[in-house]
């Protein structure tokens, strides 16, 4: 443990040491305030040097833009400083443990960033002649091969843009299969466990399905009996997350799959948690029909403050024929792209359609492939094992300090509820905010919904034991403080971040969604 850590030092609010808390600038040494970009506007400044084109006759018709747009004029040094200062207001994986359950905030190797920027990868156009992008198609084909091998599934659609888009893709394939069977009209219900991520019901609803909720057992898993009772000839599919959002493996998954298939429905699996089992379990061996894979979770493409991601979907034999365009095939003259309905007809397939323009998130494909190749079959298996080990270590170490709703072992994440806070006046939210002062990003809170005041911790495999030990010690200290009436440490938290607690209610009540130029000052004043 670092000699610099103050473990064991008492925590206090206020106190005797002279702490300077207001400065003239509002800055706090390296913690710098930053104006809005628009407030930096200085007409005449510019962050690029572009020469005015030589005089020519415009051919814009009547569509020449008139008047000011309102964009601020800022020089390059100021622009760079603006974003560097903003960046310093963010937490990141590179700064510390980021235990957001379900989000899989793991290390993002810089090799992958470098590979994505090779001119032969980053600087090619999706509609160049295919003979000029054979390497790109090879890369996609290689990625597809890895994904199929790792999941044990025979087909994959690479194009979905993120997990939720993958869900849509998978459910569309299911729908297409049902249409092909002439059962689309009849099957209007989709079963979704209570613990599911919001995208699952949203996806099903988007396609017009009725969402039917499956209750959970006391062990945090699908209630098999309740589930079977809900099955019927009007069920199109089940959308099940496995490992589930409580961080648990669905023990009955094979029975579930069998029952689904028996009922003539399909089994969609939310694969957001594939990182827990990669290399150790192949979803194809569990009876799954379609599953998306968040390349930005399991395969570490950076989350980038909210995206972009990539959500390839693997398919069972039953669904492969319906997988969307485009896809890559390897023919005698090299790689080809099947892009249009005509191409598909020629290829003898029946894709349900197209999810997006072009071919998917190439920039994420190369990163994910670099990650996979770096780990290899052995390393990926170790990824799952270490992720699960780290989570169980957290669960075992904290179960007496926090409260755990379910028995272990867990998979890649450890779920706690708020029973340990009962009577303290501290809520899950407060507890999380106090972690900020300690230098941690909070865990996922209030999700999954099946548990009260949930605290879902996913350390991932890229955290060291040393880092996790300090994290555990900190949470123990916080739990102790909460229980010993040190309420202000929580309800006022965070104290030390660039901003203290933000008023979200006010924000939603009268939304201010953009900057507006200040009203011109009145001449008389």
């Amino acid at each position, binding site marked *: 443990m670092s000699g610099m850590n103050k473990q064991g030092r008492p925590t206090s609010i206020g106190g005797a040491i002279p702490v300077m808390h207001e400065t003239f600038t509002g800055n706090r040494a390296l913690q710098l305030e930053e104006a809005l970009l628009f407030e930096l506007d200085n007409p005449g400044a510019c962050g690029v040097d572009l020469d005015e084109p030589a005089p020519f006759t415009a051919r814009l018709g009547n569509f020449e*833009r008139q008047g000011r747009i309102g964009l601020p004029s800022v020089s390059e040094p100021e622009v760079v400083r603006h974003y560097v200062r903003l960046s310093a207001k963010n937490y990141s994986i590179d700064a510390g443990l980021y235990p957001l359950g379900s989000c899989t905030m793991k290390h993002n190797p810089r090799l992958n960033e470098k590979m994505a920027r090779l001119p032969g990868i980053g600087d090619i156009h999706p*509609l160049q002649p295919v003979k000029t992008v054979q390497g790109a198609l090879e890369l996609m084909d290689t990625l597809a091969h890895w994904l199929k091998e790792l999941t044990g599934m025979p087909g994959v659609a690479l194009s979905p843009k993120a997990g939720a888009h993958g869900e849509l893709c998978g459910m569309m394939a299911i*729908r297409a299969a049902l249409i092909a069977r002439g059962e689309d009209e009849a099957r209007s219900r989709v079963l979704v466990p209570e613990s599911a991520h919001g995208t699952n019901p949203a996806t099903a609803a988007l396609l017009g399905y009725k969402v039917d909720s499956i209750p959970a057992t006391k062990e945090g898993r699908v209630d098999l009996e309740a589930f079977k009772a809900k099955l019927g000839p009007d069920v199109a599919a089940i959308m099940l997350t496995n490992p589930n959002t409580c961080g648990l493996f669905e023990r009955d998954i094979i029975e579930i799959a069998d029952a689904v298939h028996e009922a003539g429905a399909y089994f969609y699996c939310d694969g957001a948690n594939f990182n827990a089992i990669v290399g150790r379990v192949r979803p194809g061996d569990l009876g799954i029909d379609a599953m998306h894979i968040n390349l930005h979770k399991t395969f570490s493409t950076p989350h980038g403050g909210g995206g972009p991601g990539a959500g390839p979907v693997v398919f069972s034999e039953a669904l492969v024929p319906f997988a969307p365009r485009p896809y890559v095939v390897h023919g005698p003259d090299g790689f080809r792209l099947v892009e249009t309905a005509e191409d598909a007809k020629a290829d003898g397939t029946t894709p349900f359609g197209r999810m997006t323009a072009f071919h998917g998130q190439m920039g994420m494909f190369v990163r994910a492939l670099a990650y996979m190749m770096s780990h290899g079959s052995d390393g990926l298996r170790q990824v799952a094992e270490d992720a699960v080990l780290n989570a169980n270590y957290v669960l075992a170490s904290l179960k007496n300090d926090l409260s755990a709703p379910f028995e272990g*072992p867990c998979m890649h994440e450890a779920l706690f509820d708020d029973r340990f806070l009962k009577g303290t006046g501290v809520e899950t939210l407060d507890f999380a905010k106090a972690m900020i002062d300690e230098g941690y990003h909070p865990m996922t809170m209030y999700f999954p919904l099946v548990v009260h005041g949930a605290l879902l911790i996913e350390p991932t495999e890229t955290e060291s034991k040393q880092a996790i030990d300090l994290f555990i010690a900190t949470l123990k200290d916080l739990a102790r403080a909460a229980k010993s009436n040190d309420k202000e440490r929580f309800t006022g938290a965070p104290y030390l971040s660039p901003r203290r607690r933000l008023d979200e209610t006010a924000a939603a009540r009268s939304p201010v*969604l953009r900057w507006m130029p200040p009203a011109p000052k009145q001449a008389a004043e």
Partner: protein
Amino acid sequence: MRYLPLTETDRREMLGVIGAKSVDELFRDVPEHARLEGLVDLPRRQGEIEVERALAKMAAKNVSASSVPFFVGAGAYRHHVPAAVDHLIQRSEFLTSYTPYQPEITQGTLQYLFEFQTQVAMITGMDVANASMYDGSTGCGEAVLMAHRVTKRKKAVLSGTLHPQYAEVVKNLSDFAGYDLEIMPPALPGKVEDIAAHIADDTSCVVVQTPGFFGELVDLRPIAEAAHAKGALLIAVVPEFVSLGAVTPPGEMGADIVVGEGQSIGNGLNFGGPYVGLFATRQKFIRQMPGRLCGETVDADGKRGFVLTLSTREQHIRREKATSNICTNSGLCCLAFTIHMSLLGEEGYKRLARINHAAAVDLAERLAKVPGVEILNQAFFNEFTMRVSKPAADVVDALADRGVLGGVPASRLLPGAGLDDLLIVASTEINTDDDRAAYAAALEEVL
């Protein structure tokens, strides 16, 4: 393995604390026959040197845009991205952070999203914009669904100006979601598309692209009028966002929703993704918008700050009642967009647009002189369509053999539509006079 910090000693100690004999025990909930005993049939771990070598080998098989005179567009455009952009988006604090759900320690992301929303709203001439969609095509699909929610109608009309793959995406979504759709035939430059005639009382929206797929600029005003007269919305689609530095924005021509592809600003070609969907609308529709929104507020000390807001529209709160299922969006691409736009500013953005227009006009003039070429467009920005005297696909292939990437044959996206002789060509600020001369010379050889 370089990315895995745990050592065998650590693992043993941790298993001890957990009270498990082996890691296998932790996987005991996995049905026995589904437990893989050995390794999957894939190569073993490799060092950086080997991985880099393998991927560089694949990359070397592609003809990169920087290595040849390059004129490919049709929905993705090669522009110069200032070095500061790529540097800044790689900062750990941006690259390796999550969606800003904890605003106290994600003000960096939140503030740039707020600024991004403002820029997009200003440029499109709309009131508000969201914090991005996946890309232009999926944003287009979401816009149609939103129009259905707003109008409570079920039918959209897609103009023949719309990028064929965008149209396919809308159709796919529309079909599966159970909505109606009318897709008009390709709208060739020079012929006016009478879309107003297709707007009926049950039309929820019309979707028009400008510059259109064939490069032609479209007058949205009459379409907006016709749509509004029937209670329908006008959705304007702008895949080449640089155009709005020179061209009247849809917001000033009556559009109700503007969908854009932001790749042109700050983002590379990347073989088609990741890109960034821009989505702007009128204030009155904000509660029907899909996607994340960032809003201004104050903190406990009264200081200005930003938060994600109106999340009651979103799946993580509203689940099956959400306006969209989108979760992860295009965060880092927004950042690239907004940084590049900050560098450009009012003057730079407009000048960049003028340079693009000048480049395309110059190219059109040069190519028009090549025997066998007819330029179809009247009013265009940085892209136009030409009729060539041989099948366009063959022409493009032959040009590639001569080291020129000359554009997109319409038949690649619209096969069987009788458009085999059309070639869509773009020129931007990255092209030199020499590039354009090389194109004309090669084309002359090929035709």
